[in-house]
């Protein structure tokens, strides 16, 4: 962890200018809060020749009401701004909560929501520069009998066993958010569910973002606005720590029964994992001890733990149970 390599820094004021630089400099790297990026450079694992600081582009910043009762959140809006915004807290309290639980105050003051969903995985081997599959090599250092893999995946390992580290990602998937991406001359909309990609699709990236793409922002539709929402993050420490498992649930109830539910779990797979089994199980049912027992049985079905992350399975089950329990008031 040291001084960074030399690079050119660009601070464009418009999307067009940013795109022109990204087109000219083939290895240019977008930087927003820099909280994920600078670590890569200090470790000298990644050494792009140019950085494009997008925080000077006014259109990328801020929170606005959408016409469907939802919200538009610009990519460079900081996590502190998301956590403290009145409209976010009112309509999507679990998004505010997840943002407020990321890392530490200082990181949230500069770290952006765009950077939070676009951040790379935290697999220690990969971050330390081991030439693993994800780094273009031909082995996985985390999936060996003695490897340290307590933070790694339970599902859909495909050569790589790294997980999504983001706290806001499962919330955005649960809220059925849409990511708006500037790709060349076109604006592309991608559902949050499809935005995150696993190693089976492309082992070298975590999202659909390609070189040159700029994430403009996130549209959270009104679908789940004002619903009952639950977010919980289990981590080794209360501050500064990535989730071991986190869970996001939005649900509606009527007459004591659950009428709709959306539940997504983070840090158990390379992408946020939708708990479809739990969703279909609980809709139409009344929350309570019986339902909780069933939820516990299906929540982590199909999990395939590695050597040191078996604890994640009961953790995931218990978090799903606690989310459902929050409906029983």
């Amino acid at each position, binding site marked *: *962890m*040291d*001084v960074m*390599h030399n690079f050119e820094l*660009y601070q464009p004021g418009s999307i067009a200018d940013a795109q022109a630089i990204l087109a000219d400099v083939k290895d240019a790297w977008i930087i927003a809060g820099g909280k994920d990026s600078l*670590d890569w450079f*200090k470790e000298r694992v990644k*050494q792009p020749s140019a950085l494009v600081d997008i925080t000077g582009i006014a259109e990328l910043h801020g929170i606005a009401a959408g016409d469907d009762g939802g919200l538009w959140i610009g990519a460079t809006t900081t996590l502190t701004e998301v956590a403290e915004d009145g409209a976010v807290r009112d309509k999507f309290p679990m998004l505010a909560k997840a943002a407020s639980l990321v890392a530490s105050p200082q990181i949230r003051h500069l770290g952006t929501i765009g950077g939070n969903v676009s951040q790379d995985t935290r697999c220690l081997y990969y971050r330390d520069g081991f030439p693993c599959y994800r780094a273009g090599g031909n082995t996985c250092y985390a999936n060996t009998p003695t490897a340290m893999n307590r933070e790694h995946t339970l599902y859909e390992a495909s050569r790589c066993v790294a997980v999504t580290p983001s706290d806001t990602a499962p919330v955005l998937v649960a809220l059925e958010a849409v990511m708006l991406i500037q790709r060349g001359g076109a604006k592309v909309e991608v559902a949050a569910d499809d935005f995150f990609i696993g190693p089976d699709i492309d082992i070298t990236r975590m999202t659909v973002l390609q070189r040159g793409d700029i994430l403009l922002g996130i549209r959270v539709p009104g679908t789940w606005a004002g619903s009952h929402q639950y977010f919980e993050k289990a981590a080794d420490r209360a*501050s500064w720590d990535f989730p071991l498992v986190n869970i996001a649930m939005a649900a509606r109830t009527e007459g004591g029964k659950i009428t709709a539910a959306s539940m997504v779990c983070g840090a158990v797979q390379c992408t946020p994992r939708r708990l479809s089994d739990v969703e279909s199980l609980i809709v139409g049912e009344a929350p309570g001890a019986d339902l909780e027992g069933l939820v516990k049985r299906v929540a982590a079905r199909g999990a395939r733990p590695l050597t040191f992350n078996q604890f994640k399975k009961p953790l995931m089950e218990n978090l799903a149970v606690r989310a459902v329990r929050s409906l029983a008031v």
Partner: protein
Amino acid sequence: MDGIGPFDPTVGYPPGPAIREIGPDGSKIPLWKPLHMSRRAFLRGVVCSGTVIAGSAYLFSTATAARADARAVERMLRLTVNGRTHTVDVPPNETLAFTIRYRLGLTGTKIGCNSAECGACNVMVGGMTVYSCSTLTHRVRDKEITTVEGIARPDGTLHPVQQAFIDELAPQCGFCTPGMVVSAVALLNVNPKPTIEEARLALSGNLCRCGAYDHYLRGVMTAAERV
């Protein structure tokens, strides 16, 4: 290369004269060895005189050539720190912690982990706490920066937080103290009567390796009673 930090082959170090000097007996002595000076005084001397210290290429990346692309940022920038505006020559890859410590000589701001994990480098930018070790200086151009040196009154009167930290025996080794002071002052600026839980959250981005957290927390609460 016996400078500060390990030799880094990717950095183009300037050749001899800038980093070594011939001693009275003809031997080469490294300029940076502060023989009879405290580290702090030495650093200040170096910063003020503009002397190039061994390993300064490593610290200051003098290897960066002139901008190849006119659209890239200019190295010269204006930085307002503790109410004073400085014009400084800062390469694009320099962090705010380096600029503050080694160009402006404000060594109250510490560098602990250098990776956004400990809070030793905590400063306020526009009233908000940030880790200066993980913030590019160019990113905070034109912003108001407050370091721990800017907390006490110009006449030397301590801020209530500083006084309360002394009264509550908060610091042990003191390495985390500047960061703790900045976090506590930033909190009281916006929330003069915090609950202990709010204070805990405000300090949650500052690690104390001596584990004096409760003392710092008591300090914040004592200060809140006094402001």
